[in-house]
């Protein structure tokens, strides 16, 4: 068993393997100092909640406390490996500053109270608003951190209890484009491919996906293939020189905001070279002719100019994509949070459609999730869709849902698409949403244009309920704070990007009076007395397992069919991929084999949206476009971004995640190893830009945009010149009181979103830069993605290849 510092070496040691072989097992373990595996009382199965990979793992419990974690050797996702965040961040659960009692605002300050008082306050305000204004006064903004059972309960309450369409998840910031792109192309959400496709691929293309930082275990799988015989070739699209870029056969670093032009250029080359599967396209897709016409306008020469990428590299990338026999593509925030997000992501689907590479080993698209339980917000309808991937524009689907909920169809709002997060905040800003209930997320740091968000949340007329595990920048502004139980302190299921469902079991008791989110929602439903048609309770379940069973019924016959699963089954089998039903008792590894799609007008989840205007496609249009339910090839031209650098603000600003932190660091900064690995915000710039602005590594710079300023330490990296990068995890809760608000990247980001997916654009804005203070040279922290990483004595973990 090797001991290894996994802060310094986030991906651990290699276990090489060849194409078509099974990925070898390597079990990663981290236990509190002084604890050995022999001391552990029990190992409680769960899965990772700090990124979307969905790695199976066990929590070590001793004397009723968490004392460590270990990867699950038999799990199909990770085969025992763990991400650094998973290795260390569980320690945060035991922090002394957990929220342990409900708080209510009295004379301007939050004071402790009991559950009855807090819930009464919420219920009283709810009743008042229902009487005064009706359901439109309510907004719910949830997380990518809760469990399936909790989202389903929340959806039932919001959509059928209150009857509002203002319910979304912060997965909107993160993964909305993945869902939108899948719906555009395949008529339905849900990943076509599977992580196991990495074992077979001969070309892996990563579009705006710094997998080395965001899903380290998936990157370990890729690294192990790269270290083995007959390795795949990697294509990387990213303006930063990431670890992925450094392993790539071709690295394209386009100018931010030009992804659609780049994708059209690649498709142009592939089509002109005739490297398409014409039979597949004719048999299984509609819309090809228009794509062909559209991409004709994007010869590599023109694209090279728009994207500022050498023409030769575009040709080489297209050559690799066109020559691949088993192509896996993944897409993430570099596309999703950038200009024309959905249009760009859809072109990746198109690439696979025209090459006929879907549904067989090594041929997969992974429109990745960022949030670990994002998939569940989408399935359960806690984001912009109805539960079970039902189509809000299809009256039969609404009627079916009404039957399941035992309410009149009119009770479920479906006069327009469900309201997305940015619009919910707008309604709150204008005063028509008057009660906003936020669960498990921290918009006061994670949303764009923070000065605006703070002013929306701080409004007197808005009744703000915040449910979370720690005090945050958002709880500070709340009228009622509800202390929630964290992962490991409650039971439920959740589903990762490749549709693998895991059961996560309660390992320890929550601190103080903190309660599972499910219990809080059930309590509210009970107090509000929501009923169905015959007067029986609307929410008829009482705990996780009965909530899961209710959900199974809701999923029956839909793409995400869970009816073949049960807690018992998941306990025995570990992760299982949906659909899992009578016809697929062992789950389903790949969707759409043989070109069979779920896009029939009667069955599809969505008729799609116009990629530029965002207007929903009407049913009649969809029927005439796609009567027999084939895949839909949607094309789009390039449009210049809405904000472009000029003399005043010469830089593109992009923001993103890092390997050591998650979300707004509420958990990761409370784990000493992760906190020390990257304690402070920094700004990345190219050597040329640093020189032009007379800046050196370690200097303190002020980055500013029309929205605000951030003070950050300079790092000189291989990023494209003219582009600045800021990590977006840093907020204010761990700063001394009264410290300046100059730390969160979102002070600077623009309020603009993709019209089709409604995902905010964190990677299309402008900034300028000036020197504040000379610094002390290179920082040692968090260089995992770069050179010379920090060493951490307390981060020694065990790795055991088997």
């Amino acid at each position, binding site marked *: 068993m090797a001991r290894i510092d996994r802060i310094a070496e986030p991906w651990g040691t290699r276990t090489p393997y060849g194409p078509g072989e099974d990925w070898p097992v390597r079990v990663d373990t981290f236990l509190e100092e002084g604890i050995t595996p022999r001391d552990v009382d029990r190992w409680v199965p769960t899965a990772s909640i700090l990124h979307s990979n969905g790695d199976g793992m066990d929590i070590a419990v001793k004397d009723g406390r968490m004392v460590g974690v270990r990867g699950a050797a038999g799990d199909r996702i990770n085969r025992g490996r763990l991400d650094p965040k998973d290795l260390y961040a569980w320690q945060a659960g035991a922090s002394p500053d957990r929220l342990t009692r409900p708080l209510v605002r009295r004379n301007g300050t939050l004071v402790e109270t009991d559950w009855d008082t807090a819930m009464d306050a919420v219920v009283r305000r709810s009743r008042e608003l229902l009487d005064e204004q009706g359901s439109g006064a309510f907004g719910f903004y949830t997380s990518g951190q809760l469990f399936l059972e909790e989202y389903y309960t929340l959806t039932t309450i919001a959509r059928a209890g209150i009857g509002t369409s203002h319910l979304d998840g912060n997965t909107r910031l993160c993964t909305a484009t993945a869902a939108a792109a899948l719906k555009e192309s395949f008529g339905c959400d849900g990943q076509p491919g599977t992580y196991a496709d990495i074992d077979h691929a001969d070309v892996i293309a990563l579009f705006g996906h710094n997998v080395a930082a965001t899903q380290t275990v998936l990157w370990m799988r890729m690294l192990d293939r790269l270290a083995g015989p007959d390795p795949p070739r990697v294509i990387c699209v990213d303006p930063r020189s990431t670890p992925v870029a450094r392993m790539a056969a071709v690295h394209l670093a386009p100018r931010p905001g030009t992804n659609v032009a780049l994708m059209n250029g690649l498709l142009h080359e592939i089509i002109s070279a005739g490297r398409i599967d014409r039979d597949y396209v004719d048999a299984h897709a509609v819309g090809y002719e228009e794509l062909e016409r559209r991409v004709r306008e994007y010869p590599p020469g023109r694209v090279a100019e728009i994207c500022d990428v050498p023409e030769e590299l575009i040709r080489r990338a297209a050559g690799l994509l066109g020559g691949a026999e088993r192509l896996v593509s993944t897409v993430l925030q570099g596309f999703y949070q950038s200009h024309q997000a959905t249009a760009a992501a859809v072109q990746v689907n198109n690439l696979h459609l025209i090459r006929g590479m879907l549904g067989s080993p090594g041929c997969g698209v992974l429109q990745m999730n960022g949030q670990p339980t994002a998939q569940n917000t989408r399935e359960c309808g806690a984001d912009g869709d109805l539960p079970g991937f039902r189509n809000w524009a299809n009256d039969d689907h609404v009627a079916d849902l009404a039957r399941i909920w035992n309410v009149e169809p009119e009770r479920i709002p479906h006069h327009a698409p469900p309201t997305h997060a940015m619009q919910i905040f707008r309604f709150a800003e204008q005063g028509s949403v008057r009660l906003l209930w936020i669960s498990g997320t921290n918009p006061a740091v994670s949303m764009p244009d923070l000065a605006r968000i703070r002013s929306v949340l701080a409004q007197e007329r808005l009744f703000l309920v915040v449910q979370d595990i720690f005090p945050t920048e958002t709880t500070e502004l709340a009228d009622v704070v509800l202390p929630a139980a964290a992962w490991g302190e409650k039971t439920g299921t959740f589903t990762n990007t490749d549709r693998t469902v895991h059961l996560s079991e309660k390992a320890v008791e929550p601190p103080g009076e903190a309660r599972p989110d499910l219990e809080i929602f059930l309590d509210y439903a009970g107090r509000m007395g929501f009923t169905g048609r015959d007067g029986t309770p609307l929410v008829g379940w009482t705990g996780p397992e009965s909530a899961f069973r209710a959900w199974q019924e809701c999923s029956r016959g839909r793409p995400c069919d869970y009816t073949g699963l049960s807690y018992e089954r998941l306990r025995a089998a570990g992760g299982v991929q949906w659909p899992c039903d009578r016809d697929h008792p062992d789950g389903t590894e790949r969707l759409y084999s043989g070109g069979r799609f779920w896009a029939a007008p009667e069955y599809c989840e969505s008729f799609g949206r116009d990629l530029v*205007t965002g207007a929903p496609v009407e049913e009649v249009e969809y029927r005439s476009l796609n009567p027999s339910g084939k895949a839909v090839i949607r094309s789009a031209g390039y*449009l210049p971004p809405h904000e472009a650098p000029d003399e005043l603000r010469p830089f593109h600003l992009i923001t993103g995640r890092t390997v050591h932190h998650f979300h707004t660091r509420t958990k990761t900064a409370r784990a000493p190893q992760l906190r020390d690995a990257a304690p402070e915000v920094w700004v990345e710039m190219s050597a040329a830009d640093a020189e032009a602005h007379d800046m050196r590594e370690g200097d303190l710079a002020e980055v500013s945009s029309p929205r605000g300023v951030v003070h950050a330490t300079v790092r000189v990296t291989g990023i494209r010149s003219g582009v600045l990068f800021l990590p977006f995890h840093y907020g204010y809760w761990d700063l001394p009181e009264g410290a300046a608000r100059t730390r969160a990247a979102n002070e600077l980001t623009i309020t603009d979103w993709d019209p089709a997916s409604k995902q905010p654009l964190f990677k299309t804005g402008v900034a300028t830069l000036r020197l504040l203070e000379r610094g002390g040279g290179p920082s040692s922290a968090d260089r995992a993605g770069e050179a010379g990483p920090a060493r951490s004595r307390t981060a020694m973990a065990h790795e055991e290849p088997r």
Partner: protein
Amino acid sequence: MNGIGLALRGLHHGERALAQDLLRVSERHTGDHEIHHVARDLSAWSQRHVRELAEIGGRYGARLGTAHPLETGLGAKLRGKGGELVGHRGPPGMPLLHDLRHVHVQAAGVSLDWEMIAQAARGNRDTALLRLVERCHPDTLRQMRWANAHLKQLSAQVLHG
């Protein structure tokens, strides 16, 4: 100028007005960010139509100018958080509904003009003109659907809120 020339002049006028309306809507609703950004993109479509119409108009004796730039800065009044028109009564969001309605009606007129031109081009077997219609008219329909979709999305909240 023959009938086609006259119709082209009408269309040119309508497209220019639509381009101007969309720009104004963008400027008036800076607090409704999607409206603000997308209306500007959609205005650019009509501005392109105006140029293309001017190029072809001469063949039908219609001298269609492109010289007058669109006016900007007209809509700034509605800036600000609530997006309330000074002195305006009624729920916030009302002016936006009103503007979207106007865009829809304006675009519908332009769409009908394109229909007429298409028919004339077919009758005349003027393939260049027909291709122009095929390039531009779908944009007009998308502009309409955009306004319509936002009206649908916002009406319940604004009128009931």
